């Protein structure tokens, strides 16, 4: 009895997923298909669902404006379920089966690394909207999030020059983004004359929830009379217990400020922000940015999501920039053929949400302002510092011995993601 019901349930579930994946199929033939590859279930759903909704909103708005090249845009949404190998399968499905011309997606670096061979093999386009560790430049990927020199390095500069920080705690979750970022930051700090004994590096597992001893170590490390700061690459869920423990052990932002690279408005919305006031975050966009574009975007978002309490964040802006860049490049090229659009994208410049313009560089990274904000009681950020101009994303860090001499330029004749300026050779690796 129960077995048959379960079987029925399974069939029903299979049918619903299949129909969800192919909702677009019934639409008219000549639409331009835009793939959305974000996890809607599993651990990363918390961050990625918002980006899926952002893409749906951007596509809906573009269609209201009359579509693109006289055709309507159509979103094809798939759910890679926070499962890295599944990302590659779903990417292949989007490109080969659903014939999408462009894909917006991924959040974690490991998911990007997983889909990269697929995009290169099928020569499609991926827009990647999240800040990442750099050390990569693919012909098929456009990085609209921040590279380390657009987030981590300016943040450290701010702490060093404006706050006078002398001792550094680099705390991160144990995976590729924090490890690489901290390697770059350590090299940078030492180049700036900080001594090894004034740097403490600490890694914790994903979803770490017991921060007592680490926070107590931070407190001891910061009690030597020299100004101390924590540079946090702690990822997602682990942040909330971390900040709670900081608050409980009485570490305030005035004593030991924490600057985070993964904590934005969305993460704060699930948090009691009282003990956090004054802690910092470095991003290229904050919801509190004062500009007309931003106000329009926020209004549109609240209306689209039908919830006036929803917030906007930095990866959403990255998708906004990426999508508009793609639209402009397609208009310029007159076709959606990925091979042509890849070339047309370089040099395209569109308004960003902080009141300026962002341009796509030859290394497939974009120019962005860097902002530093202090957390407020209402979960928003007060911008306390910003770069005077735009910062161009650097694919290969200047502070790591292995990548110092590498540059990336996808324009012909160089057309190489990792050209060594010393040996005058393109290593030819496909990343």
């Amino acid at each position, binding site marked *: 009895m*129960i077995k048959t019901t379960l079987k029925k349930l399974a069939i029903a579930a299979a049918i619903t997923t299949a129909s969800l994946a192919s909702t677009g199929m019934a639409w008219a033939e000549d639409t331009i298909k835009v793939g959305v590859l974000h996890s*809607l*279930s599993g*651990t990363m*759903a*918390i961050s990625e*669902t918002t980006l899926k909704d952002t893409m749906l909103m951007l596509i809906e708005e573009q269609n209201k404006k009359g579509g693109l090249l006289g055709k309507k845009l159509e979103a094809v949404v798939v759910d890679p379920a926070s499962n890295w190998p599944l990302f590659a399968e779903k990417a292949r499905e989007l490109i080969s089966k659903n014939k999408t011309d462009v894909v917006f997606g991924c959040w974690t670096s490991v998911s990007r690394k997983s889909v990269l061979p697929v995009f290169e093999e099928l020569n499609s386009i991926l827009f990647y909207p999240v800040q990442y560790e750099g050390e990569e430049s693919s012909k098929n990927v456009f990085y609209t999030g921040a590279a380390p020199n657009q987030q981590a390095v300016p943040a450290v500069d701010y702490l060093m*020059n*404006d*706050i*006078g920080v002398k001792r550094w705690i680099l705390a991160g979750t*144990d995976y590729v983004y924090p490890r690489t970022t901290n390697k770059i930051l350590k090299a940078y700090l030492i180049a700036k004359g900080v001594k090894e004994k004034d740097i403490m590096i*600490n*890694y*914790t*597992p994903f*979803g*770490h*929830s*017991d921060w*007592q*001893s*680490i926070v*107590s*170590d931070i407190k001891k490390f910061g*009690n*030597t*009379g020299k100004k101390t700061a924590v540079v946090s690459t702690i990822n997602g*869920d682990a942040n*909330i*217990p971390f900040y*709670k*423990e900081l*608050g*409980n*052990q*009485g570490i305030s*932002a*005035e*004593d030991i*400020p924490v600057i985070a690279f993964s904590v934005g408005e*969305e*993460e704060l*919305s*699930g*948090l*009691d922000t009282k*003990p956090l*006031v*004054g802690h910092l975050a470095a991003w290229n966009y904050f919801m509190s940015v004062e500009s007309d574009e931003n106000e329009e975007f926020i209004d549109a978002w609240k209306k689209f999501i039908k919830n006036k309490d929803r917030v906007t964040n930095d990866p959403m802006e990255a998708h906004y920039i990426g999508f508009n860049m793609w639209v402009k490049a397609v208009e310029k090229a007159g076709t959606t053929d990925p091979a042509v659009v890849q070339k047309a994208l370089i040099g395209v410049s569109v308004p960003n949400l902080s009141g300026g313009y962002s341009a796509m560089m030859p290394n497939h990274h974009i120019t962005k302002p860097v902002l530093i904000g*202090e957390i*407020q*009681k209402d979960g928003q950020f*007060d911008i*306390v*510092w910003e770069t005077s101009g735009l910062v161009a994303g650097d694919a290969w860090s200047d502070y790591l011995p292995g990548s110092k001499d590498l540059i990336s330029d996808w324009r012909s004749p160089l057309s190489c993601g990792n050209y060594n300026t010393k040996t005058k050779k393109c290593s030819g690796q496909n990343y």
Partner: protein
Amino acid sequence: MSVSATTVTVKKTFSPLLFFFVSFFMLMSMTQQTIASEMPAESSLEDAWKTLSQKNYNKKAEAIEVIAQENPPEARPAMKAMLEGQLYYAKRGKALYFLKEVNDNYEFTPLFDTDPALKPVLQENRRGFKKVKVNNRLRRMIRQLLAVMQLKHEDADIRLAAVQELLKNPETEAADLVKNAIGKETDQRVITSMQTLLAVIQLESGDETAQLAAINTLANSLNSSAMNALAAYQAPTKALENKAQSAINKINDKRDLYAKAETIFFGLSLGSVLALSAIGLAITFGVMGVINMAHGELMMIGAYTTYVVQLLMPDNIAMSILVAIPAAFIVSGLVGIAIERGVIRHLYGRPLETLLATFGVSLVLQQTVRSIFSPLNRSVETPEWMSGAWQINEVLALTWNRLYIIFFCLAVFMALIAVMKKTSLGLQVRAVSQNRTMARAMGVRSKWVDALTFGLGSGIAGLAGVALSLLTNVGPNLGQAYIIDSFMVVVFGGVGNLWGTLVAGMTLGVINKLLEPWAGAVLAKILVLIFIILFIQKRPKGLFPQRGRAAED
């Protein structure tokens, strides 16, 4: 660049400012009445108030200095409000207002109630007003300035906080002020702190006898400023240098001792969380033998119940946790009974199928929560009485929420033991788990007992969820993070033994925290897992194996 340049100027002007303060205060104490009328510079003060509504943080810093120097009666409340983010200005006219939130409404009261043109405003939103923004540097500066003002506050705790604040950045100019205050001080804690502060300052004086006295005072203090002052101390003679070194050693010895106590506390608190999340499993897995992979999701439901209870009683956060405890027990218990009746009862005696089915149930529950509450984390507010720490001395502080959770864990455990040993339900549960056929022959309704036992285990998982909601994220993935640890604790403690679960949880917690400082959080976890694997090889039945005939099958 311009920002960094002005940082320097602010730092430089800081000491003269304090100096000004001190002299000003001494004047105040002499001629409190007349001084107000003698203060000129009305215009600069007025300008300073106006500057607060500007955007530039450096100008604001200067303005705050001016206000603190002039010290009109409004200065202290205004500075406090600035720290709290409750000082606003009207967009039109730039007049300053205090904000008070009254039942979802915003009440703006003018800072200067003397001006008849300004009236309190009560409105539903904050439209028309803007916050006077402060950053970390301003906040720190205001705190120091307030500390000086509050040395004579009537509340001893505030005076203590003020002295502690001054200790963070000991200035020679503050010495006279503190010397003046220490004579009138009655509270012993404040006197000790003040003595430490004076000693830190004296250490830099040229007088050797004063330095010796200072070293002796500082040797008994655990304050980090005291330690730093001693470490930076340049002794003029060999004798003093030895004296300072032995003082440092004495402090370090004491600190090490307290650090050990702290580690044990951290271990016990992690252990209590582990034990709490495993107790429910000790019943469903240990007593009934059901491998319940949805155990973590039952905790998650408990945590979401806490969230919903807080939504229902937003004005009474302090009580909401107490209401959430029975509510979470009932909700999770009912869900547990539904799982038992719907799925598990068809699968008794088939552990693999049970494992798969309950794993499926866990996914269903997760996705249900995602659909109802969205995949975003929800925030459970920690009540006032559970936040902060119990400051035993300068280096040892036990956080309240962890302390309460240790006690909560013990209370739940004791209650469960009482249920199992003293009630007829407990008797029947034990009977059914030891020999089902015999129990049924004696008239025990075994199916009914199964459902209730599973419900009891699930309800306790819900209680663990209440505790977890105060420590970590309330989100759909909450359960996954704890399910492995829970199984680990139950298996390590000995399946079917409740005491084993408690001892195992505490042991693993303490081992983990002892390893963490030198191995790092990642390696410590791995080492604990290896330890358990080796231990289970040696003693397959865990710490406290069940004995007797029931253990045979």
